[in-house]
């Protein structure tokens, strides 16, 4: 993101979810500073579900750690059961600390990006830019619904046939980079 890059968030509908009222207030202040006019604040996943039924959002930012239901569970629900108008919305999860037991959940819930707290305005703006430019396909299967977790698909190793219909042709040189996960 360059200082001179332009972003127009005036008509973007934001949903912010955080059980901590202070955190919610801080993030709302930040996105309002970015020019966002439509901000819906929810203090729990339950409140968020109700809002998601009634409003079409363009971006969802949710805290990971919340009592009763955490942010990962909320994202999983959105990807699988939310109304169609919100099922594929860009979602960023903000986490203060990820417990060992939640690492896989964070990877598999179907989120566009995970961001560590404290969430600075610069990091958040960069993530919004990045998400707006993100052109990854969505993957839908039994185990996972969400954006493709491979950021670059450079095909199977040299000398091996690919297993996927959209794998690049055999023999593409491998540099070891880009394969960030499996779907």
């Amino acid at each position, binding site marked *: *993101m*360059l*200082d*001179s*890059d*332009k*972003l*127009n*968030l*005036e*008509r*973007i509908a934001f949903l912010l979810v955080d059980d*901590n009222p*202070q*955190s919610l*207030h*801080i993030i709302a*202040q*930040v*996105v*309002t*500073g*970015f*020019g966002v006019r439509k901000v819906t604040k929810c203090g729990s996943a339950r409140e968020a579900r109700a809002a998601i039924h009634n409003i079409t959002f*363009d*971006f969802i930012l949710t805290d990971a*750690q919340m009592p009763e239901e955490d942010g990962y569970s909320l994202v999983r629900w959105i990807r699988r059961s939310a109304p169609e108008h919100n099922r*594929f*919305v*860009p979602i960023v999860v903000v986490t*203060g*600390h990820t*417990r*060992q*037991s939640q690492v896989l959940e964070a990877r598999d819930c179907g989120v566009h990006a995970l961001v560590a*707290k*404290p*969430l*600075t*305005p*610069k990091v*958040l*703006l960069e993530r*919004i*830019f990045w*998400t*707006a*430019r*993100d*052109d990854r*396909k*969505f*993957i*839908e*299967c*039994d185990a996972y619904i969400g954006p*493709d977790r491979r950021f670059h698909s450079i095909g199977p190793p040299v000398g091996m046939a690919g297993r996927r219909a*959209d794998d690049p042709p055999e023999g593409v040189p491998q540099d070891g980079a880009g394969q960030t996960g499996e*779907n």
Partner: protein
Amino acid sequence: MSGVRKFKVKSRLSTLALGSGGITAREALKRADAAIESVRGDCLVMIDERIAEIERRFASTVPGRASDRFEDLYDLSSGIIDVALGLPESGIDHAARALCDLVDLSLERGVRDWEAVDVHIVTLRLLRGSGQAFSQAQRDAVLGGLKKVMLKRVGDPTTGLA
């Protein structure tokens, strides 16, 4: 559901945010910084409250700390990370995250290393008072010390290995 379906989704975020009009990133950050300046004081108060509660319940001078709810130490420390924006470039968020790692791994293993907890609590207090005045090298040294304590006394939080 069977098989894998891949498809493109056109997001309104892309269409609207990258369309015409809007403000530059520089201007957006300037406005956001001004907006959060108004809540910085509140964040500092909350950081102080949470450190004070950690000390009141879990410091070395508290006789009954072993019978207190250890999980609350995680929540209090996590609460410091939530509002650490109030004390930027102090390292306090890293120290709080290290304490979360310590509690998380301790709970997973069913162990309590109070000396390791003490070091983390003292470090939180130190960085609250002087973290912003420290050089980056000094902060790195303090936080590196926490990492060594964690590795030596409890294990590696990135791998879970002792």
